[in-house]
């Protein structure tokens, strides 16, 4: 549909249903993310975008359907699940940097404790990553001493440090002051250019148009549209998408 040069299927969701009590958050979601692809999920608040994103690394359990990562079914719990999560990075809306650890300590915790990389090597790699996202000078700072944009870039470095097969971004710029949004989007666009597989839930339509290989539009827990960014933004097929775009683009 979207991009011609496409890798192997990396994340496959089939018939995924999710309930919060009596409320159904996801209705029969089937979606495939290919290796190297940048998939951007857009839609109105409460449409299930974040829930979908969080199901992929099982921060939310699912009630029906199945999810495969790189050909393996998503483990339900225990060490197998921890191993899988190490392979799928996640960047949160509220950054969630470990509050009692410096930027560098945040980045090397996973490599030293999960991958058992010696501390020196992990620190070297950690400093390189912090440099790559432009916060190398803040390696010794605690999260509370950093701006939102700096925190989110450290969080991206923390995800990258695990050398994941894919990274999930759950509204990574929604909690940022406007002046910090660009610096985080720039880092994400850089990752996209480098071929990282990314699933991005966002309200940043400019980023979606520029960086996405494919757009998924969700409303009421369903995928209503799926296609190349130019098709979606220039000629949305559904009324819901037209309404959504009209509202968000006039703002």
């Amino acid at each position, binding site marked *: 549909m979207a991009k011609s040069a496409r890798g192997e299927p990396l994340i496959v969701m089939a018939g995924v249903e999710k309930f919060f009590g009596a409320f159904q958050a996801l209705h029969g979601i089937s979606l495939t993310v290919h290796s190297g692809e940048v998939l951007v999920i857009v839609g109105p608040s409460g449409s299930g975008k974040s829930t979908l994103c969080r199901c992929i690394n099982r*921060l939310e359990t699912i009630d029906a359907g199945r999810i495969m990562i790189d050909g393996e079914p998503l483990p339900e719990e225990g060490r197998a699940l921890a191993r899988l999560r190490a392979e*799928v990075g996640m960047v949160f809306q509220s950054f*969630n940097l*470990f509050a009692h650890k410096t930027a560098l300590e945040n980045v090397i*915790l996973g490599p030293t404790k*999960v991958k058992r990389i010696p501390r020196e090597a992990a620190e070297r790699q950690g400093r390189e990553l912090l440099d790559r996202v432009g916060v190398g000078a803040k390696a010794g700072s605690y999260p*509370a001493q950093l701006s939102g944009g700096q925190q989110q870039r450290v969080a991206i470095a923390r995800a990258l440090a*695990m050398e994941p097969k894919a990274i999930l971004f759950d509204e990574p710029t929604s909690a940022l002051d406007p002046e910090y949004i660009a610096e985080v989007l720039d880092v994400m666009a850089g990752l996209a250019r480098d071929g990282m597989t990314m699933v991005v839930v966002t309200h940043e339509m400019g980023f979606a148009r520029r960086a996405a290989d494919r757009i998924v539009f969700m409303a009421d827990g369903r995928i209503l549209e799926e296609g190349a960014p130019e098709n979606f933004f220039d000629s949305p097929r559904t009324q819901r998408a037209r309404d959504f775009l009209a509202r968000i683009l006039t703002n």
Partner: protein
Amino acid sequence: MGVITDNLGLYADGLLGTLKICALVAVAALVLGIVLAGFRVSPVPPLRAVGTAYVTLVRNCPLTIVLFAFAFGLPEVGVNGSYFIFGAAGLTIYTAAFVCEAVRSGIGAVDTGQAEAARSIGLTFSQSLRLVILPQAIRAVIPPLGNVAIAMVKNSAIVGAFGVGGELYSVANTLNGARGEPALPVYAGVVLGYLIIIIPAGLLLLAAEKRFRVAR
């Protein structure tokens, strides 16, 4: 007040004895209490059940009964030891239940995003607890842990009443009970002894609270 100055050596020994019991119990109860708190928030139901049962039973049992069970009950089933060991063990078991609940409230106060971030980089449950959640939880509950510590120091007097000997309470027993010295000055000296332990300990905790405060 002559009775205090005349028996300074006895008081000093008592003070040291109480300090010894309290230091031992503080460390042991902190470790046991943290482990129990880990049980109580564990995803493994049997561990949660053990943690809950422990706290429900021990926290609601008078300390005197716990100590009776240790000092007199254990020898009946063939477990022998000194009164010091039994007393310290009993006070540890009792205090750990309160440490557990203080730490558990701290775990509840740590933002859920911290645990989600820990899981998302592949840490197992026990790793997230040990490396991410507990270090923040314990910092947050230093003041209530201080309350538990103060109660524990005072409870060590009950351990003394079980005849451990060589601690502050037994000083009063010796001077007032055995030698017939007047009670008021004797007990005033004992109170002074507890204050000498508790007030600096409180100041230390205050310093620790400031030093380890996690900025958010």
